[in-house]
């Protein structure tokens, strides 16, 4: 009986060692990319393209830019950070988490979107009526698209009027959930939501006049690793500025500067 | 006048035995039930009270049908209102002795009389955890008597009492029963002590 138990423990131990080594071997060929929520649909496509070209797997971590910065500031082991603005990655650079200041990899495009069959061309007049009961917007403190949306509303003198109807998603992803499940009449989100072929919900949308908000300059930084920047991470950083990445981003509604 | 005949399956561990009991008692009489442990004496009392139902049976009390399995008559224990003295007393931990009786009846004079009968008047404001075993048993009896029941069922009601207390209590109770014309059925392991007052005996043994 004792011998049987010993055999069991030994097998479990060996299996654990195997498992650990397999996963650590896998990570040598994997890089962790922290991506702002608006990139949810496109990061998978970029990752696939990158893997085809280099054999390196991209492990995306999606969240609001603010949350990702908080995580990185507290030691999260990411290799590259794709933000939805320039301020958040600039903060990281200032605090020594990167070697270089952020570079713009794309310009974001803000849209207003709904699952309902309402006329969004005149959204500025529609939004103050009773037809619109709830407006979903990303939390401006941590999500640049939320900030841009508030900026646009303020410019149109609508912010105070519609504030009582606003509900805040912690990221653009949550805003998308609110829009697609229909719990919010409409919401402000990224154009890549409607360009995503994986999205099966029928969406009604209009771009927001880019003159009403400061351009959403989406910045990227290569994060300092205690072991020095890994070669695959540098490769991905360069890939993001390449023409293949740019054409994918354009397809998903981003503006290439 | 009670007439009862019941059939019930008893599960005693892995053995399943059948219980078949016939009882006939005149109004105001005292019947003592005795027999070996586990034979089904307590179960029979519970059947009479309506707390459990036999597979087949009839019970008629003073002309009123309490149970008739063939005709689907089965009066609830609330409607039967039998006075029941449980083997483990079943006292309410949250109520004092007096509150037990007040819960059963609003007749204040009757309550005082009952308390005096069993010398519990001094302990009326104590909760069961502060009463001795014998006092608890007496309280259980008082609570059953408080509703002035037509049928009183007692499951080993004197087991915790010493002989002199028992004798005095039985005498006092007999007086109350005669006044109220209560029909009494007592389960006891010591039927010989009750032969003085018992009109008849019923033996329930293993089948």
């Amino acid at each position, binding site marked *: 009986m004792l011998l049987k138990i010993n055999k069991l423990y030994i097998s479990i131990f060996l299996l654990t060692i195997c498992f650990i080594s397999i996963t650590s071997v896998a990570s040598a060929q994997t890089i962790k990319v922290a991506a702002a929520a608006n990139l949810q649909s496109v990061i998978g496509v970029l990752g696939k393209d990158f893997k085809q070209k280099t054999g390196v797997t991209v492990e995306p971590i999606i969240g609001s830019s*603010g949350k990702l910065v908080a995580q990185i500031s507290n030691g999260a082991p990411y290799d590259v950070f794709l933000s939805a603005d320039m301020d958040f990655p600039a903060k990281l650079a200032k605090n020594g988490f990167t070697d270089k200041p952020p570079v713009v990899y794309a310009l974001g495009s803000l849209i207003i979107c709904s699952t309902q069959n309402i006329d969004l061309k005149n959204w500025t007049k529609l939004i103050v009526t009773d037809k619109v*009961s*709830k407006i979903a917007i990303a939390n401006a403190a941590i999500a640049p698209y939320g900030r841009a949306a508030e900026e646009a509303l303020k410019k149109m003198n609508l912010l105070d009027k519609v504030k009582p109807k*606003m509900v*805040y998603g*912690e990221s653009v992803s949550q805003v998308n959930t609110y829009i697609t499940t229909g719990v919010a009449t409409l919401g402000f989100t990224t154009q890549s939501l409607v360009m995503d072929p994986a999205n099966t919900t029928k969406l009604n949308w209009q771009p927001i006049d880019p003159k009403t908000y400061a351009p959403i300059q989406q910045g990227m930084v290569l994060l300092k690793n205690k072991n020095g920047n890994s070669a695959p991470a540098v490769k991905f950083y360069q890939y993001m500025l390449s023409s293949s990445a740019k054409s994918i981003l354009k397809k998903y509604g981003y503006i290439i500067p | 006048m009670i007439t009862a005949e019941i059939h019930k399956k008893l599960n005693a561990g892995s053995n399943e035995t059948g219980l078949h009991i016939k009882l006939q008692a005149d109004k105001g009489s005292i019947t003592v039930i005795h027999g070996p442990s586990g034979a089904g004496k307590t179960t029979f009392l519970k059947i009479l009270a309506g707390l459990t139902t036999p597979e087949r049976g009839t019970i008629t009390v003073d002309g009123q049908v309490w149970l008739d399995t063939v005709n689907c008559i089965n009066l609830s224990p609330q409607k039967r*209102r039998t006075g029941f003295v449980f083997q483990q007393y*079943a006292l309410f931990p949250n109520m004092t002795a007096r509150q037990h009786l007040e819960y059963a009846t609003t007749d204040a004079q009757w309550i005082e009389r009952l308390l005096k009968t069993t010398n519990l008047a001094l302990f009326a404001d104590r909760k069961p955890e502060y009463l001795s075993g014998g006092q608890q048993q007496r309280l259980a009896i008082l*609570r059953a008597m408080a509703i002035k029941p037509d049928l009183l069922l007692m499951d080993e009601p004197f087991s915790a009492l010493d002989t002199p207390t028992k004798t005095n209590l039985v005498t006092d109770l007999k007086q109350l029963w005669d006044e109220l014309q209560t029909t009494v059925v007592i389960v006891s392991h010591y039927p010989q002590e009750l032969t003085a007052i018992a009109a008849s005996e019923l033996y329930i043994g293993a089948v």
Partner: protein
Amino acid sequence: MDWAPIWLSLKLATITTLLLLVIGLPLAYWLSKGRSVVRVMLEALITMPLVLPPSVLGFYLLVAFSPRHGIGAWLAHTFNIQFVFSFPGLVLASVIYSMPFMIGPIKSALQQLPISLAQASYTLGKTERETFVKVLLPNIKSSVLTAIVMTFAHTLGEFGVVLMIGGNIPGVTKVASIAIYDSVEGMDYHTANNYSLLLFAFTFVIVTVVFIFNRNKIKSPLE
């Protein structure tokens, strides 16, 4: 410091606990009476929020009450109310989410009472309801108190479900747990700490007081 999230959390916990007390007592009583298939399944259903991730409950509530279809659509159309993004919606979610904490201790305590107590009461001619109120309930007081406190504390700490269906509206659905999460995300650790300390201290005090109270109840001979 903005006290609104704290008041909101306290309001939510209080209303939820009171509602659960009203719903939970009869439900726990019914569940304690037997082991029929219906009872077992209902008990399993009630216990689900204990083992499911809160986001599952939040997700299903989001979909169920979406004004695009089903109940949500009917409510929006007939009464012009929407559960998602509202305080009543949070109350509904909290009631479902904290129900096992109210029902569990009460049902167990009822089952541990000797069945002869209720039977004695019935032979005295008392109805089930009177028996429950005057005999059973007074004898499970400490379990009821534990259930109330656990429900209250659990609702105070509720996060996952609120995150899903609350919409983070200041003064309406931005409860303390969300405010803490928000401030951490925005790296305002000072505010996060203030809210966290307050919630911790509050919960710790009520739980301790209840436990001391229960201890004394058992020891005191003068009741």
